[in-house]
């Protein structure tokens, strides 16, 4: 395990790849690895790319990688694709669009399946980000699954979230999907070579004018397949990052991120211990038979685990 950590910190591809496997799959050693690398994280720029299925997220990512490489930055990509709800398997195809970088030492691409995790990312995406971060990657790009409207976890993780939109998907409907509008730090109107790009652009602007946000997200037209508009988009991304940095919001964001990570692990770690209790199955049966409320069931399990719950009275007092 020490070798693995030393290797990944030294930039060894295989060590990093093996460490990701351990972390992604919650295999033994995960906690130790994260513990040793955690203090070395916090330097990478985290860039989220999200948007509807087929919008061109992977193609855009490919061109953004190329741009960042010309600037000499090292890049990691986490490309998330959905798992089949039927078999649990997945075809991870994002990477097809990025294979021109396969032999570049400065680019590390890793595919992850959602494994029924909701929110547009895989459960352990954040931990994989930590590994890339500790390994010294300058920019970590996270491509979410093709999202509808509720899959917006990316916004809690990335410094800058790019929402990719395309003409012809029923524009006003696309735009009015509240979730996506609210998470965008930057918009890319991709496939701008197609009819309807202007219309989408103006509808998007009109919509943004209605939202009384102090700073409106910038909108960029791109044709990812032809490498058009990428320089401007990347400049817009880092301009957003700089604004956040200067606004002093960054500290607040950092704390929020820490809280989100804690929340996820509180659930995971307590659930794992609860499921290990002998009483667990009995409680499930009683709640299922409507003999006990879920809250009472939790209290019973917590008591067994030695976790004290505040009396309801106390909670109401303050």
């Amino acid at each position, binding site marked *: 395990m020490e070798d693995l950590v030393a290797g990944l910190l030294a930039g060894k591809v295989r060590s990093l790849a093996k460490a990701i496997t351990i972390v992604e799959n919650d295999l033994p050693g995960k906690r130790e690895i994260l513990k040793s690398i955690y203090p070395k994280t916090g330097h990478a720029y985290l860039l989220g790319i999200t948007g509807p299925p087929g919008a061109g997220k992977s193609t855009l990512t490919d061109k953004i990688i190329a741009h960042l490489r010309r600037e000499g930055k090292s890049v990691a990509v986490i490309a998330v694709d959905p798992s089949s709800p039927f078999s649990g398997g997945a075809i991870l195809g994002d990477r*097809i669009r990025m294979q021109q970088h396969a032999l570049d030492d400065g680019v590390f691409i890793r595919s992850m399946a959602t494994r029924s995790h909701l929110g547009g990312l895989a459960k352990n995406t954040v931990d994989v980000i930590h590994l890339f971060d500790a390994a010294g990657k300058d920019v970590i790009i996270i491509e979410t699954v093709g999202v509808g409207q509720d899959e917006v976890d990316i916004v809690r993780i990335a410094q800058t979230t790019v929402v990719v939109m395309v003409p012809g998907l029923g524009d006003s409907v696309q735009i009015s999907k509240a979730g996506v509008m609210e998470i965008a730090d930057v918009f890319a109107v991709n496939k701008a070579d197609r009819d309807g790009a202007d219309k989408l652009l103006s509808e998007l602007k009109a919509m943004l004018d209605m939202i009384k946000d102090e700073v409106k997200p910038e909108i960029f037209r791109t044709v990812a397949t032809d490498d058009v508009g990428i320089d401007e988009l990347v400049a817009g991304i880092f301009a957003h990052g700089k604004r956040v940095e200067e606004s002093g919001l960054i500290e607040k964001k950092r704390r929020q991120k820490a809280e989100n990570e804690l929340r996820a692990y509180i659930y995971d770690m307590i659930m794992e211990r609860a499921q290990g209790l002998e009483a667990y199955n009995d409680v499930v049966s009683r709640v299922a038979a409507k003999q006990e409320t879920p809250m009472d069931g939790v209290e019973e399990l917590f008591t067994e685990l030695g976790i004290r719950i505040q009396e309801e009275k106390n909670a109401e007092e303050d």
Partner: protein
Amino acid sequence: MSKKIKVLIAKPGLDGHDRGAKVVSRALRDAGMEVIYTGIRQTPEQIVATAIQEDVDSIGLSCLSGAHNKLFPKVVDLLKEKGADDVLVFGGGIIPDEDIPGLKAAGIAEIFLPGASTEETIEFIRNNVKTA
């Protein structure tokens, strides 16, 4: 949680016949595996670099153009060179029977021809990958 089997399905060389690779990819997905498909026209170098970054358990190579005798062993050799020879390599496509012993000697664990059922491939992978 038991680790999922992760497989790279790759098409080395200039061969553009991709139906078989896609059929196999979908079958493996439907068997609960996580499949990375990188599309046509990959060099052995790209395939091996991808396999290492993705830390796959296995690589399935597909070739219908006749270049298998050169390309398949090249992938195995590069894996060895990179210290990643624990990855199980198998293949399929239009491959004459007389080429199969040579390919196996070169480290390709199994070859699946047209007519072989995808169940056989699934069985083979499940029985032969080394998962942690």
